[in-house]
């Protein structure tokens, strides 16, 4: 026996498990409610003639119930699938609810609009990529920090870098930039000594060398070794053998940078860390001379 008014009286004034009273108003949790508000006209229980729209995985259905099926809760609701197109869906609603109360039809159409918008929004959001928040166990974090600290100590970074740079210097990557392995340098001086002592002059050559040195010095002001050398050169400007020696070294250096290319590659290959710059450096040197 269906009696709307009695039901409504009970629901509203005694108890309804779908009702939720919050500070902003009284709402209804019943999934069949069209508006979500708890009042007489939109209560799905207290209206024997009622319609609503529900969403099943992105497909909207129009639900209708009439008093004729009130005694058969099993097939109380008549369900019509609404087309995906909004306007067509409106048409279908209009056709099915032709003689229904105008207010209810209006509310259903409003609900359709709202749900379509929601569906669009949901799909858009689903396409968006989101950052996923990962956890890092505190234990692991601490352990890694500890190990990192120890690894840094074991690495002795400054020492290893210095060693590496010296190895590169020895391999002749910096040929033409530094005249630093003084040992070889001075060996050549010693061999040239006797010849050099006899000869004089060649001022023009001297000037060329000095100019070149200054060019090199432009960007490395701190390079003490070079500077010292330069100064010494200045002071003994009239000392012939010194100049002679410089020339000799110059020549030696040039020849080295030229012939280095193939040999270096062979030398480099067995090393474990990869250094590709080398041959290029030699080329560059050639270009600058």
């Amino acid at each position: 026996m269906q009696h709307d008014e009695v039901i409504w009286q009970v629901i509203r004034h005694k108890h309804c498990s779908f009702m939720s009273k919050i500070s902003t108003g009284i709402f209804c949790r019943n999934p069949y409610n069209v508006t979500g508000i708890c009042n007489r006209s939109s209560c799905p229980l207290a209206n024997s003639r009622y319609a609503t729209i529900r969403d099943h995985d992105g497909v909207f259905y129009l639900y209708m119930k009439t008093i004729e099926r009130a005694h058969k809760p099993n097939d109380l609701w008549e369900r019509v699938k609404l087309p995906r197109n909004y306007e067509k869906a409106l048409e279908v609603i209009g056709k099915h609810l032709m003689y229904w109360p105008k207010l209810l039809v209006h509310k259903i159409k409003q609900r359709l609009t709202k749900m379509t918008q929601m569906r669009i929004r949901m799909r858009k959001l689903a396409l968006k990529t989101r950052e996923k928040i990962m956890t890092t166990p505190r234990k692991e974090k601490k352990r890694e920090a500890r190990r990192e600290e120890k690894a840094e100590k074991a690495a002795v970074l400054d020492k290893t870098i210095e060693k590496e740079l010296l190895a590169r210097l020895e391999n002749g990557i910096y040929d033409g930039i530094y005249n630093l392995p003084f040992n070889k340098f001075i060996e050549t001086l010693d061999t040239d000594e006797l010849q050099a002592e006899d000869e004089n002059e060649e001022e023009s050559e001297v000037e060329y060398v000095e100019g070149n040195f200054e060019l090199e010095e432009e960007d490395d002001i701190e390079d003490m070794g070079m500077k010292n050398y330069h100064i010494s050169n200045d002071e003994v400007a009239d000392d012939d053998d010194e100049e002679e020696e410089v020339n000799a070294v110059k020549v030696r250096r040039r020849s080295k940078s030229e012939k280095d290319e193939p040999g270096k590659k062979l030398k480099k290959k067995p090393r474990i860390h990869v250094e590709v710059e080398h041959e290029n450096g030699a080329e560059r040197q050639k270009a600058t001379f």
Partner: protein
Amino acid sequence: MGGKRKKGESEGMEGDNDSKNNNKKMKQKSEILPSSVKNKEKRSAVHAKLKHQKKVEKRKKLKARDAAEKRALELGEEPAPKQIPRTIENTREADETVCMPDDEELFAGNDADEFSSILKRDRTPKILITTCRFNSTRGPSFISELLSVIPNAHYNKRGTYDLKKIVEYANNKEFTSIIVVHTNRREPDALLIIGLPDGPTAHFKLSSLVLRKDIKNHGNPTSHMPELVLNNFTTRLGHRIGRLIQSLFPQDPNFRGRRVVTFHNQRDFIFFRHHRYVFETKESKQSDSKGKKAKDAKGESIAKEKVVARLQECGPRFTLKLVSLQHGTFDTKGGEYEWVHKPEMDTSRRRFFL
């Protein structure tokens, strides 16, 4: 347990010292273990005594060794070989992918990999640096320093673009790599390096970041092309990571700039450092030779001169740890991972992957 160990030790000692004495000691020790004493004061006293004994023994051993060495030297004999301390590095678990220098397969693989075009100088590296979506405080300053370290790097604001879109964009603009600096709680905590167009994607954990201004006596880098030092990348995976890092930098360093960028791998941590350097002669008698001009004096000075490199740190300092290496560009869902760090790999502290 402790008692047992002591036993073993003293047995080892028997060789050089008189065995009777040791045996006595051993018996004593086994009689009073500190843990068996219930009174706390007594127990600590026993413990202290034991400790002291151990110390004395150790010192004795050391002294004996030194004396033996000295004696050997005097007699002109071969001294006993120096003991090498066992470190984690030299007791590392054997890894079959550690590359030997004559690994033909590796070199063939290197020629065919994604970076070879850059490393052979067919393409010049051009780097796009961007961030995660939210970026603040230390992030931008870190990026500005990265820009000064890596030549030909460009910073683009992330905006709300997807990383895949950015990859596409960078491909069109002919970038060779993308670096994404990920920030968490206002602190850069991860680095994503993507090789382009089809290079791998490496995800690093970034830690202990120190910016330039926080480094004492830091220098300011010049705009010369830096040289690169890649240390200790031994395994296959290590080589690959090394090449990935190498492809970020131009392959024609300007040695006159005296800038060196180091990626040093130690126990799977990759330490990044950026230095200026200078070669100097230590203990140089330059002034001497300069003043005198005498050839003999010069000859003497040769022997004592030693070239050393001096370093001045500039630019940021940070540590990377590889989390994952992905084949192809960034794709978290469909991507194929070459290597992922998993917690079950952490079962031994002597197993390293790079």
